[in-house]
């Protein structure tokens, strides 16, 4: 057995490196000691013919007493050791966003924006993502509408059809301790009156008001139809609000 091992590992120099690389191990014997002339001088690539610059120190493997000893990397001044929030003067921002409780809904960020903005944009096709994926046609200049173009915006009298009425529903306004009332002209939904202090009353009134309005309008229409004095509305559906 020892003869087999000696034949394997005690082979000629040409074959020994092959064997070592095939097995994946380094040389079994320690490297021979370097000649004294080289050990005191750092490893240098001998200048080739035609090179005029100073000899370059190889940053990789160096023929030092320590194999694969490399130069230390240049240290960065800014590392994870530093508090980066302080470094970039973000303390105020951090206290503002993380110190206090940030409200969840979009309507808290944009309280003056009308409509139901807390619903996901995917539901009604108003998402910003869809705007990025399918950008609208741009490049044309905006020019005001002339008289001929404005004829396309002539509307029939009367309320909107029911299928379009939901677009104007406002979300229920929260109670505020400081009663700042922003007076807006003629909202389609009934605005809060000073008497509507209880949430139950508000809800009931809101639920009843559109229904009441519908009933009143229906009654009016019926009266108008049956009254002899009614001028008679032009031809088609009187209550449709479609464009001509």
């Amino acid at each position, binding site marked *: 057995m020892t003869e087999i091992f000696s034949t394997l590992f005690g082979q000629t120099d040409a074959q020994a490196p092959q064997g070592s690389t095939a097995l994946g191990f380094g040389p079994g014997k320690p490297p021979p000691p370097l000649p004294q002339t080289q050990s005191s001088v750092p490893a240098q690539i001998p200048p080739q013919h035609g090179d005029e610059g100073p000899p370059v120190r190889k940053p990789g493997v160096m023929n*030092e*007493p*320590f194999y694969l*000893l490399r130069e*230390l990397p240049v*240290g960065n001044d800014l*590392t*994870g*050791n530093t*508090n*980066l*929030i302080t470094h970039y003067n*973000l303390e105020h*921002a*951090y206290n503002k*966003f*993380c110190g206090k409780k*940030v*409200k*969840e*809904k*979009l309507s*808290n*960020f944009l309280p*003056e*924006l*009308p409509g139901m*903005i*807390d*619903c*996901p*944009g*995917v539901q009604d096709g108003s*998402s*910003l*993502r869809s705007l*990025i994926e399918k950008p609208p046609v741009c490049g044309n200049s*905006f*020019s*005001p*509408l002339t008289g001929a173009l*404005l004829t396309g*915006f*002539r*509307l*029939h*009298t*009367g*309320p*909107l059809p029911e299928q379009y*009425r939901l*677009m*104007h529903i406002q979300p229920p306004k929260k109670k505020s301790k400081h009663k700042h009332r922003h007076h807006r*002209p*003629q*909202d*389609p939904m009934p605005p809060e009156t000073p008497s509507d202090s209880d949430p139950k009353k508000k809800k009931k009134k809101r639920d009843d008001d559109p229904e009441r309005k519908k009933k009143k309008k229906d009654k009016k229409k019926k009266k108008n139809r049956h009254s002899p004095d009614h001028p008679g509305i032009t031809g088609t559906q009187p209550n449709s*609000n479609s464009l001509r």
Partner: protein
Amino acid sequence: MAEKFDNLEEHLEKFIENIRQMGIIVSDFQPSSQTGLNQKLNFMITGLQDIEKCRQQLHDIHVPLEAFEYIDQGRNPQLYTKECLERALAKNEQVKGKIDTITKFKSLLITELGKVFPEEMAKYKAIHGDDPPS
């Protein structure tokens, strides 16, 4: 910088208010409202022109797409900023912990190697010099 945003915000608020008023007019249209509606339509176009002018001042402003996802979900985009800051701080602390641990390990290793291989460590220190405390 803030003036550019204030300018745009003002134009957007006016535009939205104009659209809202148009919605009120249209919700229960009367023949006498036609001229008002036409006026509002032209206000809408001038509003778009004003917003278009603001665009040139803000061409260098970049908004992260992740903030858009918050808006599309009906959530406050300030939550995105909050989460960014929290994640940055957490990562900062994590990396600082790693640096501290590895620094301690290095000093322990050098100490122990100095006990076992004093000559080699002396040569190593001669090459690299005394490592500065990190």
